[in-house]
């Protein structure tokens, strides 16, 4: 009897544990599917549900908040999806929230994503059980494949063109082909590079030399150093500059006067203007001067003749004696 009781106790524990495992599993699975607890049903209408099934997850900001309860075809362009949403999260879902169907990873099952409404600056009212929220259709896999197909076709054209270009290059046609295939050009290029390298070395050496010269220069004893550091020199230079400024002003005045003078000459009716502007006057003047020269020569001859004249000879001899006396006086001094 005692043995039987012990067996019954062990059996009881075994059975209860087994049932607990089953109940726990049922609870957790049911909890994941929102079968227990407070839930509310909201609806959204889609054009295409992309293979969504009852039991698929409903996510709000990446958090599972419910499951798809039922999918009904209303008409050929509208499919209503009833979602069982956890009551705790109902306040977060607004009437302008958007439902969209997407895939849970690349190979995952479909899910319904609830997105906050676009006009988030003005929060809309929270949804109530039975409400219908708007939906948006994201790009489906089929659309993606269509786009990819177009991209592939373009890529095929591109690669065909690239093939032609590479063939041309291989044959040495075109600028790039010549650049790659022509040995002479390669040699020239090589020489150019060599020249450039040499020039760079020279420049580098030159820069080094300039650097060393600059380093060797005594800053304080140089003109620049004196100019920059000696205050006396600075004052002298300042004076020079002010004198220069003054001179420039005077030069300016002189220039202005000269300009006025030349203007007067050009515009006035004086002798100079007459001489400058009348070419005939120059000839006349020349003739006049010539006449004066001739007259002067004749006058000189007349005077010579006058000196030898008996009437005036005494006067000239007296003049010579006075001049000789003055010279003698000067020599004695």
């Amino acid at each position, binding site marked *: 009897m005692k043995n*039987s009781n012990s*067996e019954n106790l062990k059996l009881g524990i075994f*059975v209860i544990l*087994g049932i607990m495992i*089953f109940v726990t*599993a*049922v609870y957790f*699975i049911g909890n994941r599917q929102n079968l227990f607890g407070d839930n509310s049903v909201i609806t959204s209408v889609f054009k295409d549900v992309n293979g969504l099934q009852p039991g698929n997850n409903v996510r709000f900001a990446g958090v599972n908040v419910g499951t798809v309860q039922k999918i009904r075809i209303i008409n050929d362009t509208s499919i209503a999806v009833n979602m069982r949403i956890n009551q705790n999260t109902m306040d977060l879902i607004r009437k302008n929230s958007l439902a969209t169907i997407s895939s849970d990873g690349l*190979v995952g099952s479909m899910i319904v994503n609830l997105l906050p409404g676009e006009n988030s600056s003005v929060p809309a009212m929270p949804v109530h059980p039975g409400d219908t929220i708007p939906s948006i259709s994201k790009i489906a896999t089929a659309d993606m494949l269509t786009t990819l197909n177009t991209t592939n076709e373009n890529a095929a054209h591109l690669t065909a063109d690239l093939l032609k270009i590479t063939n041309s290059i291989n044959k040495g046609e075109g600028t790039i082909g010549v650049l790659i295939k022509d040995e002479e050009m390669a040699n020239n290029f090589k020489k150019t590079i060599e020249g450039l390298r040499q020039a760079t070395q020279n420049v580098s050496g030159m820069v080094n030399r300039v650097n060393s010269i600059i380093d060797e220069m005594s800053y304080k004893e140089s003109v620049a150093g004196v100019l920059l550091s000696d205050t006396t020199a600075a004052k002298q230079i300042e004076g020079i500059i002010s004198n220069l400024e003054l001179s420039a002003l005077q030069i300016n005045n002189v220039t202005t006067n000269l300009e006025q003078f030349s203007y007067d000459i050009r515009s006035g009716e004086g002798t100079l203007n007459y001489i400058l502007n009348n070419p005939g006057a120059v000839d006349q003047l020349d003739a006049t001067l010539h006449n004066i020269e001739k007259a002067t020569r004749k006058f000189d001859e007349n005077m010579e003749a006058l000196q030898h004249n008996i009437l005036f000879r005494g006067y000239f001899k007296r003049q010579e004696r006075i001049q000789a006396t003055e010279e003698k006086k000067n020599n004695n001094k």
Partner: protein
Amino acid sequence: MTRNFPIAKNLYSFFTETGALSRFAGRFFKELFSRPFEFREFLRQCYQMGNKSLLLVGVTGFILGLVFTLQSRPTLEEFGASSWIPNMISISIVREIGPVIIALICAGRIGSSIGAELGSMKVTEQIDAMEVSGTNPFKFLVVTRILAATLMLPLLILFGDFIALIGSALVENIKGQVSFTLYFNQVFDALGFRDLLPATGKSFFFGFAIGLVGCFKGYNSSKGTAGVGRASNSAVVYTSMLLFIIDFIAVFLTELIYGT
């Protein structure tokens, strides 16, 4: 006539045996609901089948989960899908591998022991003695065993599944740096009622098949002590075959009910 055609002979014996088994099952249901109920013997059988098989089932389940995960891991890692291991392992174990493997283990342990026990009682004429003493041997020996096997196997399978998942979680924890919490979160994310309920439902049928065939072979054994061994052996063989047939029907029905 059948002596000259071995296939016909085999077919004849197959149908005869199936008919006898059906009559045996019918008698079981008839005796099940008629008084007196051998409750004490039923509990004793439950203890023998349930508690005494738990260690075997636990070790088998643990190794099953461990090895299954270790073997699947490299292939899934190659595809970069190692995060799907909890999902895949849990669905495989709960839906199919757990129930079938544990039922086969139990067929080996429980079915053979029932066949051997009843077979030896039959050849030593203890069953006849019970009838003479006024005890209904079918009710006392067969009904209690079949009922105990039917009710204990689902529990054993639940234990086995749970321990297998622990073994799998252990491997994931060591090799994949996946915590137990994350592992079981993923397991319950992946599992649905369509995985758990049909598997639990068919395990009742597995238990019933093990008890029924074991009792049938033992209760109808003959030809002395050699018959005991044959009863025990054929109980295991027939039960194993029957388990796969039941499994096929169960999967087929599940697909019909839940869809693909």
